[in-house]
Each structure stands twice: as structure tokens, then as C-alpha cells.
């Protein structure tokens, strides 16, 4: 059984005057441990698709199965818990909370697991060590470089040990050297830890490094 399965996914944005079809009849299957890139021009629906896979948005129609669970039928509490335990997110603009230090930012997903504070801190420190930021754990996001911020975001995404990592243009705001660092980190997480990664990118070279490329155009899967 596929780790992630999308069947006949459609997404339509409606306003009073306009109806925009962001995704049209998308069918994708991603196997456990795969590293998949989603590519396409701006506005073709890549991020919308990633949001739908990450349960950050609902499709207008279709079915999503993750780890054997029909996720669209989950209630808020179960959905939140499912997101927390199974999905990790990395955003292009990092989305770190500026008023929390690195350690607290990384601990965030663990706050929703009824875990003792000491255990949370231990896990967060361990993951920061892994991404090479243990010396920055008491710094605030404003005191870090873009690459460091993205590494914090990746640490936060994987601290709860989710099997699936969703990255929306993770190197989009970084220079090429930092971008390469982040890609190395993602590959390590995929190969060494077997995490399933779905990454939206504009960078053809980075996409070629992944196991599979899914191309989108105008809301439709073209490859």
C-alpha cells in the first residue's frame, strides 16, 4: 500500500465573481521512504497540493490516504494529532516564531504530546545537535542567518519523528551554498532515517537529485 495516496483531487477557489481551478483531477501515490519533487511554473498549484497533502487545506473533492488513514474524515482533534505525529513541515519563509529562541521553536511540536518538559528539551537538543545548531539553541531567529533559520525549521519538522516531511521551496530564500547545505540535510533525513519527503521546488538541479519528479502545469499533473 502506498504511504501517501491522492485520488481524484480537485481544488477550486471560489469568490463571488471568479472560480479558479487550482488542482484538477490529481492522482499521486508516494511510497514509504521516497523523496519526491514537485515542479512547475508559479501558480500551477504545487503549494496547494503540498498544503492538501499536509492537511493544511482541504480539497474540493477527492480522497487522501496517509499511512492507511482516510484523513479527510478526521475531526479537528484527531486531525491535529495526526498532523503532529505523522507530518513535518518546512516552509520557504521558515515560519519561526520570532519571540521564542531556537530551542523553544524546535520544541513546539512536542508541546502537543503531553510530554515532560525535560524530555522535550532533550529531544530538541538532540535534533539541534544533528542539524549542527547546538551552539545556537538560545539564540533568537533574528540572530541567525537564512540557512540557519531553515535548519531550525527542519529540526522543528523532524523533532517529533514524523515519517513524512513536506518542504515548500525550502531553499527558495537561500543562496546556493546554503541551499546545498539544506538539500544535503534533507537527503540525509531521507536516506539515513528513511523519511518520506515531498518537496516543492523551482530548482531543476535540486529536483534531479530526488528520486522522482512530478510536474504540474495549470493545476494538472503533466508528468
Amino acid at each position, binding site marked *: 500500500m502506498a504511504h501517501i495516496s491522492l485520488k481524484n483531487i480537485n481544488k477550486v477557489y471560489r469568490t463571488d465573481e471568479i472560480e479558479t481551478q487550482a488542482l484538477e483531477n490529481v492522482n499521486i501515490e508516494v511510497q514509504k521512504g521516497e523523496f519526491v519533487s514537485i515542479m512547475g511554473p508559479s501558480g500551477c498549484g504545487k503549494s496547494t497540493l503540498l*498544503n492538501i497533502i499536509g492537511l493544511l487545506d482541504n480539497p474540493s473533492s477527492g480522497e487522501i490516504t496517509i499511512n492507511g488513514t482516510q484523513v479527510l474524515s478526521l475531526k479537528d482533534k484527531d486531525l*491535529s494529532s495526526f*498532523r503532529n505525529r505523522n507530518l513535518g513541515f518546512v516552509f520557504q519563509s521558515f515560519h519561526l*516564531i520570532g*519571540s521564542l529562541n531556537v530551542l*523553544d521553536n524546535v520544541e513546539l*511540536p512536542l*508541546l502537543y504530546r503531553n510530554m515532560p518538559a525535560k524530555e522535550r528539551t532533550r529531544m530538541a537538543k538532540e535534533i539541534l545537535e544533528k542539524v549542527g545548531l547546538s551552539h545556537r539553541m538560545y539564540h533568537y531567529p533574528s540572530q541567525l542567518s537564512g540557512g540557519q533559520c531553515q535548519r531550525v525549521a527542519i529540526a522543528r519538522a523532524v523533532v517529533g519523528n514524523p515519517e513524512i516531511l513536506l518542504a515548500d521551496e525550502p531553499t527558495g530564500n537561500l543562496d546556493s551554498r546554503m541551499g546545498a547545505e539544506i538539500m544535503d540535510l534533507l537527503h540525509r533525513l531521507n536516506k539515513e532515517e528513511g523519511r518520506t519527503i515531498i518537496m516543492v521546488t523551482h530548482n531543476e538541479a535540486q529536483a534531479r537529485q530526488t528520486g522522482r519528479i512530478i510536474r504540474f502545469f495549470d493545476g494538472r499533473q503533466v508528468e
Partner: protein
Amino acid sequence: MTGKILKQMWHQRKINGWIFLELIIISFFLWKAMDPIYTITTLDNMDKGYNKENAFAAEMEARGTMEHEESIEDITKIVDGIKLNHMVEDASVTKKFSYPVSTSTTMVSYRSEESGDWIFLTLYSGYSPYAQPYLNITGYTDANTGKTPVINREIPAENICYLSSMAAAQLFPDKSNPVGKKVWTRRDTLTVAGVINDVTAYYGTYTSLIINFEPLPESFIPALYNHMDIIIKLKDNADPDKFRKHFMENEMQNLRSGNCRIAGIKSFDEIYTDVRTEIGIAGQTKLQYMLSLFFIACAFLGIAGTIWMKCNRRRSEIGLLRAMGSTKAGILKMFFTESAILVTLSYMVALIPLAAITLNSNEFMLSSDYLNLTIDNTSPYLYKRFLPHFGIVTILTYATLVGTAFLGTYITVHKYSTQQPSQALREE
């Protein structure tokens, strides 16, 4: 979680500092607006120390010249006539304006062995044959038993008096039990028959009251008759409106004797309301309510607006927390906690000057715990005591502050937490 919230608030101290300062100022003035509303409402609703239900005062009219004397029997016949109505429990003759809701007051100076100085007290006078009915109708209650005082027939009623608690405290400052002791006017000596619970005047403040009973004169000059009123109490199950209608349509015109007749009748409640309107208290009270409510509305908008803006700025944080696994309720709880901490801390700071001002104003420091009377939450003493008064206004204000902050938080956070996280995360 609270630790994280505090850490986050501390890191945002620059912006939170301004909000904190704003909340201190709003809290201070909100307390000041709540105080009169609470005080006025409490004064209006607390036990006034007399009976206002089912009680009426009849206005008498008489014609005659200064030379013409009328027998007092004309008055007593009218009183007896009123008592014939099956709805009437009792009726009594009093001196003019000598019942609880009456307008004018006679001030007389009294002293006791313990007071030393002469003390000015408000004097209400009944007539000795009607002493017990007078007490039954007015509804004054004994300060110790809480029941209607019962006249001891061994002492002539014209030699006794009743003191309100406040008057007793003034005449007997050592707090000894005054019952059986003497008080003097410059002319008479009276024995204190009992202490009644304090009676409030139109402003809601206490009156230092003394009640005595004079013998009925044998005759009176109708031209000057207006020294008397008739007060009436209906039976508990009687309908006051029905009584008034029936009395005015069928009985009033027949209730005449000699040159005396009943000119009109008003319930104690009506007299109370009319007088409050006439002397401006009703208007002042309305104005005070309106000003206070206006300020509370302004404070509400100020607090809700500030909190709304604060939460609105953190829209993407709400989306992020949802993405990290927080439930909608979890996010609301987090923001509520943050708002509650801010409001509570700023209120605690505002309470320091408020307590100092309230204590110094001396407004609540008049101790009337005379004779160790039971003081409970319904006691008219409540508003005179610093701690209960300050405590209640403080709690009411705090509840308003927290409620307003929660509403501001709820409106914003609920909006973003019920959106799809992707929408909340989108850059503005």
C-alpha cells in the same frame, strides 16, 4: 505551556509594555466607572430599613378658619373608616411627613448621659394611641431581632423613643446597650425602647433617626390641620392597584368627618419615586449610570481593540501552531492565557493607586457595627465598609476586564484558528 507563553511575552516586552501601560490606565478608570454603578445599584436594592410594599399615605384636606376648632374624633373616624376595607391591615395617624418616604425632616437636638454633646437627630413623630400601628405600617425592624418592635405597654408610649442604629451609635458612643436608658431634649426625657435597623434616605445614605409618640390633641384647628397624615398598610395578599382603584372610586368621597376629608392617596413607592425625581436624585442617578456605561463601553472597545490587534498580528503564528498539531481549542486556550496574564498583571498594578485613593477618601470607613449586629452581604452596612466594597467592585471590574479581553481574543483567534492553516500562514 504557561512558561513558554511568559517567555514569549517577555521577549515581546516592548510591544507588550505599551499594551500593559494602556491596560493599567483603562483598568484604573474602569474601576472608577464600575464603583458608582455598583454603589448606586446596591443602595437602590438593599434593605432600606422600612416597608415600601403595600403601604400608602393618605393626604387629608380640611376647611375652616383660625377660630374654628375641630374635634380630633373627625380624624380618628376617618382612620376607622379606612380600616373597614377588607384589604387594609392597619392604619395610623402620624405627624405630617413623619413616615419613611416623607420629604421634610424635623431636626431636633438630643443628648444622653454618654454623649456629652447635643446631637442633632431627624425626628419622626407618631401619636401614642397609634404607636404600635405606626411601627407595624412603617416596617421598621428591631436591630437585634429583625422583627417589628413591640411597644411595652407598661411605659406610656409618649415617654419612649426608638433610635436608629446610627443615632444610637452617636448618642451612646461607648457602644453600651441603650435600651432602657434615657435621652433628653431640652424639654423632655425619653426612655429608649429599642434600636431599629438603620433607615436610608433618598440618597441611600443613613438617617440618624429618632421616633417618638405624642399624645393626640383633643382638638385641632382645621386651617392648621396639615400637621397630620394617615398611613395605611394592606394585607400581604392584597393587590395594591386594586385597592387604590377601589379606594379612590368608591371609598374616598365617603371618608369625611366634620371638615376633614381624604384628598388623595399615594403608595410609599410612588412617593419615593416622585420625591427622587423632584429633588433631582433620579436624574443624577441616570446621568451617573449613563456616564459610567459610556466609559465602560469605551473601555470595552479599547481593550477588545488592543487585544484584537495584538492577536491579529500573530495570524501566521496561529496557522503555524495548527500545522504543528495544535487544536483550535488549544490555540484559543493559549491566547486566552496570554490575555489573562496581561490583564491580570496590569490590573494588579492599577489596584495599588485605587486602594490608596479609596482608603484615603474615607468614604467607606464609617464603622456602624454598633451592638455587634450581624453583618452579611445584604446588610446596608456593606457599602460603608472598605474591604467588602473595594473587594466587590474589584471583582466586578476584573470580570469585565477579563471578559472583554477574552472576547477580543476569541473574535480574532477563533477566526484564524477555524481557517485552514494554509490560509492563516499566508503572508499578508
